[in-house]
């Protein structure tokens, strides 16, 4: 479904990658290897070269906002632009069930962003992305700030979404999480993306 050909920018060597519908692919590698650069390049946040397409539709043929509503990137440290959590959702009523599903009370939508913990921010940023009903999710360390139990809650939710047919590209340092979530694994080192482990390869 997501097809990447020769995606490059300074710090990232031309990368090729396919992620099918209903598939979760993991990327790991040391800090500063270019994992976040890859995700940023996919959603076109920095100038880059190469072809990216989803369901045969080329990114170049689409307005950038339209592309980013289909392919949603959740960075490790998400930004917030309003004072209260609820203001970040187009419709807080739709967000409520998602927020409870992620182990937070519905009242969290009334909270001030400034008082959120790292883990709360991570889950709310994920909820904010999921209400967009994206076709592809790009996740950067989505559970790094969570305790193991909550991390499992988040993972089970991601499993469901994958079963529903979305594609996930996840960057994580957690080897166990990779095992639980992803069938195919890639490694990023010095800006170069390459298949890792036995079942790798596009």
């Amino acid at each position: 479904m997501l097809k990447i050909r020769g995606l490059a920018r300074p710090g990232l060597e031309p990368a090729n990658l396919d992620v099918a519908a209903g598939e979760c692919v993991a990327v790991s590698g040391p800090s500063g290897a270019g994992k976040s650069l890859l995700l940023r390049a996919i959603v076109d946040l920095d100038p880059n070269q190469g072809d990216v397409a989803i369901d045969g539709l080329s990114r170049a043929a689409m307005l950038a906002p339209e592309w980013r509503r289909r392919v949603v990137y959740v960075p490790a440290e998400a930004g917030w632009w309003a004072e209260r959590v609820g203001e970040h959702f187009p419709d807080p009523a739709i967000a409520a069930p998602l927020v409870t599903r992620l182990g937070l009370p519905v009242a969290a939508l009334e909270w001030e962003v400034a008082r959120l913990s790292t883990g709360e921010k991570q889950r709310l940023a994920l909820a904010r992305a999921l209400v967009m009903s994206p076709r592809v999710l790009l996740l950067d360390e989505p559970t790094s700030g969570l305790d193991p139990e909550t991390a499992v809650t988040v993972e089970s939710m991601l499993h469901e979404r994958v079963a529903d047919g979305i594609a996930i590209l996840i960057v994580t340092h957690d080897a166990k999480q990779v095992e639980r979530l992803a069938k195919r694994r890639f490694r990023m080192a010095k800006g170069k993306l390459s298949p890792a482990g036995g079942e790798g390869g596009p």
Partner: protein
Amino acid sequence: MSVVPLSYVDIGLAAVLLFMNAALSLALRLGLARRLLVAGARMVVQLTLIGLVLKALFELASPTFTALAALIMVLFAGREAMARQERRFTGFWTYGIGTGSMMAAGIIVTVFGLATQISPDPWYDPRYAIPVLGMILGNTMNGVSLGLDRLVSGAVVQRAAIEAQLMLGATATQAMRGVTRESMRAGLIPTINGMAAAGLVSLPGMMTGQILAGVEPVEAVKYQILIMFLIGGGTGLGLLAAVLLGARRLTDSRHRLRLDRLGAKADS
């Protein structure tokens, strides 16, 4: 209605006060004596030269020379506005955004004021055109430099918030809206304060000058009010143009935030 003329002795007497400041600085070791005297001397030379230039301009009353003087004023204002930025755009835009918007706003508002309200004959009479443009430019420059400074620093500081909106499918205009609004506010506040304090906290310079020159206070006040409105209009227009151009330059057609189009942080 006449001006009490000043002799050079009068001016020399007033200058004694500056020397007194310098002596004070020496006595208290403030290390400002030299700078005080240099600044004082600069002021005298600059104003004397401007007096001669204005005298020549008024005698010529030529549209070409008036326009040339106006252009030079705009360029100086553009340079000054740029020098006050902590972080600047790269290349042509460093200078272009501020100067372009001030030129447009200054000319539109000055011509509007001259052609319809003040109506000297001819309308470009430098005796009216140059001082009016000067007052409008001076204030517009303040607004533009404050607004641009806030825009650029806002985009840098709020990068995560702006990009978070872009990541969720916002357009560049939507994502920049918060910063754009803050910049407009920052740029307009001096104008609002100036209007609110006028007459109570400060007696505006032009009005004071006219009163010293023997104009009836009520007439001088009418002129001041007119100028205040022109200044407000000029600042608003110039600021809007500069902030919108700046916000455009900070983003691109693929709706990305382009902080790479800013230069390194300046010391000033």
